[in-house]
């Protein structure tokens, strides 16, 4: 009787274990599966080229982009950002004082997880917190000054490989999982998730645009978009993606967007920073 009971328990455990393991968060396995998916889907695209979004998907567009890069439309933003970055606040300190390595070549480490606060800190958020800590008013998260500052910081980090860490903290893992859930969740009247466009349909046309692959999509931020006739930050990109699916966007730098950026950046670990970018 006891033997039969033990045998039954073992059978139940053996049956449950794979199911439980499948639901256990595993960012390392996720990242591998995520990158492999795109590499297999687009065997002709060079690994490093995924960071160039739609330009990696279409030969004609790629040629246009190469020409555009000779006089890149984000150049003004980089110059403005450089000047802003070097200009001291009223208290004499600068942005550089708020960052490791004086803020040069650090883009690949953002977003980061702040274990004191238990939350994800994006580069845009870190910049505004730096301003506030030095007695300055925060900037809009969407464009203009914020886009210029992040453009300069990305420019100084070009070629550095995305290096997002998930510390051994259950809150960090939860933030990562929340970001993943947001990425795959359908929303808006059009019933689209981020993955509908950027996993299921990269390389396909949506009206006149070619959809970018999700892999490496953060590496090019911030971007100059011809559609916007100007620069836009990661926040602006998330907000407009939501509006395009007829979902009411959340507030910039809400927990959901911060976690989404954390997830998307983590799965792009190993790919070079290419920002600031230019997009149609």
């Amino acid at each position, binding site marked *: 009787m006891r033997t039969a009971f033990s045998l039954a328990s073992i059978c139940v455990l053996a049956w449950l274990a794979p199911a439980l393991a499948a639901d256990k968060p595993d960012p390392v396995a*996720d990242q591998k*599966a*995520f990158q492999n*998916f795109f590499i297999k889907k687009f065997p002709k695209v060079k690994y490093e080229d995924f960071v160039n979004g739609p330009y990696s998907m279409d030969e004609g567009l790629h040629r246009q982009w190469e020409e555009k890069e000779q006089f890149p439309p984000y150049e003004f933003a980089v110059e403005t950002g450089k000047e802003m970055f070097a200009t001291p606040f009223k208290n004499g300190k600068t942005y550089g004082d708020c960052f490791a390595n004086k803020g040069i070549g650090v883009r690949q480490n953002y977003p980061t997880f702040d274990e004191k606060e238990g939350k994800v800190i994006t580069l845009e958020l870190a910049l505004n917190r730096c301003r506030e800590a030095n007695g300055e008013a925060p900037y809009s998260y969407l464009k203009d000054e914020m886009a210029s500052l992040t453009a300069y910081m990305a420019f100084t980090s070009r070629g550095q490989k995305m290096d997002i860490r998930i510390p051994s903290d259950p809150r960090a893992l939860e933030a990562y999982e929340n970001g*993943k*859930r947001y990425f*795959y*969740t*359908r*929303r*808006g*009247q059009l*019933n689209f*998730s981020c*993955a*509908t466009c950027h*996993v*299921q349909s990269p390389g396909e046309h949506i009206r006149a645009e070619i959809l970018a692959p999700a892999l490496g999509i953060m590496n090019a931020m911030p971007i100059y978009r011809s559609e916007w006739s100007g620069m836009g930050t990661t926040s602006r990109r998330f907000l407009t993606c939501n*509006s395009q699916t*007829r*979902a*009411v966007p*959340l507030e910039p730098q809400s927990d*959901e967007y911060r976690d989404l950026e954390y997830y998307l950046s983590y799965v792009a670990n190993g790919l070079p920073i290419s920002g600031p970018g230019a997009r149609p």
Partner: protein
Amino acid sequence: MSATMSVTRNIALAVVLVLAIAMPALAASEADFKAAFAAAEAAEKQADQLRNKWTTTETQLAAAKKAAAAGDFDAATAAAKEAEALAQASIFQATSEKERWKDMEIR
């Protein structure tokens, strides 16, 4: 008077009577609008708690308010009902996606 004329006159009278009875019932009142708008707002509040409002719901809510302000309670009530239907759909979406998102995940 011929029999045909008499039948025609009776039909016309019947139509007038039916319209007279039906018209007040078809026209929406301010009270109808207020009830429809309250239901739409309650549903949209629930969608907001789920962090899943739709832009189209907001558009219909604004259209309902505008029509009501202009005294067009038929249009206002119709827009409010449309807003409620959209808000309910967004609630359904958010609820069903709580688990369904996993189907799309790259593994």
